[in-house]
């Protein structure tokens, strides 16, 4: 048996620091919103001429008076991602850019993807993204509140907040782009983290009913150990699947799978070191679950 409970305090401290640092990052550095949420234009370009590279493209685009233009390599050496604000939401901007690029590069390039999101739409997408995440947290809260006693709910929700905030913190730290698929990833993380916590909690509750003489400090450790191989195997297979997406699923899914990988790692960690420690700190005992059972009987 591994003594996870020996490090409860250490990891609580670490998590508190992680959350504070993440919050500071989110407040002061902010998130790198993609065009989905900020509005603007994105062009994925593939070149068939080695003359076309990041600097020559940047030169060309900067001459076009598009405002702040970012040009990056995208995956391999011939693919580039160009993004700009398109503040005035000019109508034939893509046409203009094409004719402009034709002059310098002929037809040795190809637009593989063009996305243009107006300011109104991006504001709506951001709003619905925030609503979606809040709604999912609220639904999880309600679900766990129905299924477990309030101490458990608090533990699970704290773990959930931890996972979402720290994952977003990492995205802020490395200025990784937040787009629509990241919202999907965050929601899936919420589901996964909850799933992982609930499995351990289920066992904690079962053990609370079984043993009246074991303190919650020990009891959580027993429960974590009993479910440990399941925790490891499920995290492992999920991570294997996600790593396959990250490395082989193409550039477009990179951010999405990275967010999910982080979420699975944090989610697994938080089930053990946040959710359970909340039970310990709230001094959950056999009474906590038995009282509920009695009530159920009465009803």
């Amino acid at each position, binding site marked *: 048996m591994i003594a996870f409970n020996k490090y409860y305090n250490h990891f609580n401290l670490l998590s508190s620091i992680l959350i504070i640092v993440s919050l500071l990052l989110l407040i002061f550095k902010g998130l790198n919103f993609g065009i989905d949420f900020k509005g603007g234009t994105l062009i994925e370009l593939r070149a068939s001429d080695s003359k076309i590279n990041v600097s020559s493209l940047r030169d060309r685009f900067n001459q076009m008076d598009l405002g702040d233009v970012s040009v990056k390599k995208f995956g391999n050496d011939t693919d580039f991602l160009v993004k700009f604000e398109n503040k005035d939401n000019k109508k034939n901007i893509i046409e203009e850019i094409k004719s402009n690029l034709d002059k310098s590069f002929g037809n040795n390039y190809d637009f593989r*993807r063009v996305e243009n999101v107006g300011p109104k739409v991006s504001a709506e997408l951001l709003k619905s993204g925030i609503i979606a995440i809040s709604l999912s947290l609220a639904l999880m809260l309600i679900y766990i509140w129905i299924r477990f006693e309030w101490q458990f709910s608090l533990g699970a929700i704290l773990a959930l907040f931890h996972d979402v905030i720290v994952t977003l913190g990492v995205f802020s730290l490395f200025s990784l782009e937040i787009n629509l698929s990241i919202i999907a990833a965050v929601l899936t993380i919420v589901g996964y983290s909850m799933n992982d916590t609930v499995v351990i909690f289920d066992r904690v509750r079962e053990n609370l009913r079984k043993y009246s003489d074991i303190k919650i400090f020990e009891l959580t450790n027993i429960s974590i150990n009993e479910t440990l191989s399941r925790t490891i195997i499920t995290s492992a297979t999920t991570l294997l699947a996600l790593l396959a997406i990250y490395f082989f699923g193409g550039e477009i899914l990179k951010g999405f799978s990275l967010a999910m990988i982080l979420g699975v790692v944090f989610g697994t960690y938080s089930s053990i070191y946040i959710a359970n420690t909340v039970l310990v700190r709230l001094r959950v005992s056999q009474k906590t679950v038995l009282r509920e059972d009695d009530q159920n009987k009465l009803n």
Partner: protein
Amino acid sequence: MLYFSKLRILFITLFSILFVLIASSNLFKFDDSFFNKKINLGLDLQGGSYLLLEIDNEPVIEQKLQNLTTTIRNYFKEKNVKINNIKIENQNIFFNVTDNDKQSVLDVFQDENSDLNPYYPRFKSHQLEIEDTGLNFKVNFSRQGLIRLKTSSQDQAIEIVRRRVDEVGTNEPNILKRGNNRILVELPGLDDPMRIKSLLGKTANLTFRFVTNDENDRFGVEKLKFENGMEEATVSKRIIISGENLLDAQPKMDTQTNQTIVSFTLDRVGAKRFGKATSTGIGKQLAIVLDGKIISAPVVRDTIASGSGQISGGFTFQTATDLALLLRSGALPAPLEIIEERTVGPDLGQDSINAGMIALAIGFMLVIIFMFVKYKIFGLITNVTLIVNLFILLGVLTLFEATLTLPGIAGIILTVGMAVDANVLIFERIKEELKDETNNILAFDSGYTKSRTAILDANITTLLAAIILFFMGSGPVKGFAVTLGVGIFTTLFSVYFIARLFTSIYVSSNKNKEKLI
């Protein structure tokens, strides 16, 4: 938990085979009349264009209010009520009346059978709202009135958009309403939406009006620019004929001048008015105005009574074709703005499919190897279940003709990774049970029973997330929610029916073996 009746085994087998067949119909071409459902590929996988258009209703509201002022004036004139100082400001009509008439004006606006101000009994609301301060009135559209107006201009606009898109001839366009002022256009397989975009960006409001120098024209005048250049001309506001009078328009080659022109035919009313105008206006310049710009302003030389004519304006064949198309499909009730565009080229789509499939294959292999190494014979059972699960998932998607997107493929891969969870929970529980229980069958039985709540909890939480994503997400993300959500159900089915069936067969024939798992 381990007992299966023969009927149940038959049912599970048939069900699985059925879905494997349905899923594989995506790969082979079955006889179409027998089964023709298929998983649709999203625009991000097959390539294509997604355009979100917003209708700018401001001009429509302006126009309606403009018409209303005339209607109000005429309506009350007949009733001998004098309307003074009527004017439009900030989408409100203002006017005042004398003291005697105040009540009769209010009565007209508040009468439920009023023909000036329609009443919608369903919403308990009039089209117009009227407010009075003393003898001054303020009239504007009520909330319901505005909604009516917007939906009706949306109805008209979507019809015109559909005609224009159809005329260009893209395959299987998808044109849908969004809210009450937006139109979604999905054009699969179109990698260069430039032409459609420019066609949809034009209102195509065509009018024929005389050029005049008389500033005191009875109908008013306005200065308009020529399409190609800085030149201006003063044009009367009197409309001789408009786009509504056109029956047909076609691009043609004028054999005499070797120019590309657009020839048109008018309906009866239009032909009559055109004939009259051209007979009285010989020698005058007739301006052909499209969306506030003059295409050309030829001098009328002869009376044109045939009801057909032509527009020349230095067109190329392409621009003439497009103009003819716009004229044939009719004018939009209001300008459209493209507020969101996402276009994916077909080769990127194919690359995404390939990458997705490779990731799926590799992810699948990794999970399968991992499970086999970890659980041996039970790993094998899990793996077979996983394969059947994948087929059932694809089968369900086929049956519902769901749209598969790139994030959707990611959802399938993720399902593969998470699907083993339920089996792992069961097997781990059985292992624990076997510590105190020597009877294999009893241990397996209670393993299944005791792990059930955890499995249910785990899947419900993921399902909740998927449901929210489905309703809040758009396009590709919705595809992810679909595969993730459907995956949960197919996983539960395959774990509790298929995997359990295999487990029960294996355990029953190895009842007395020690260390079964």
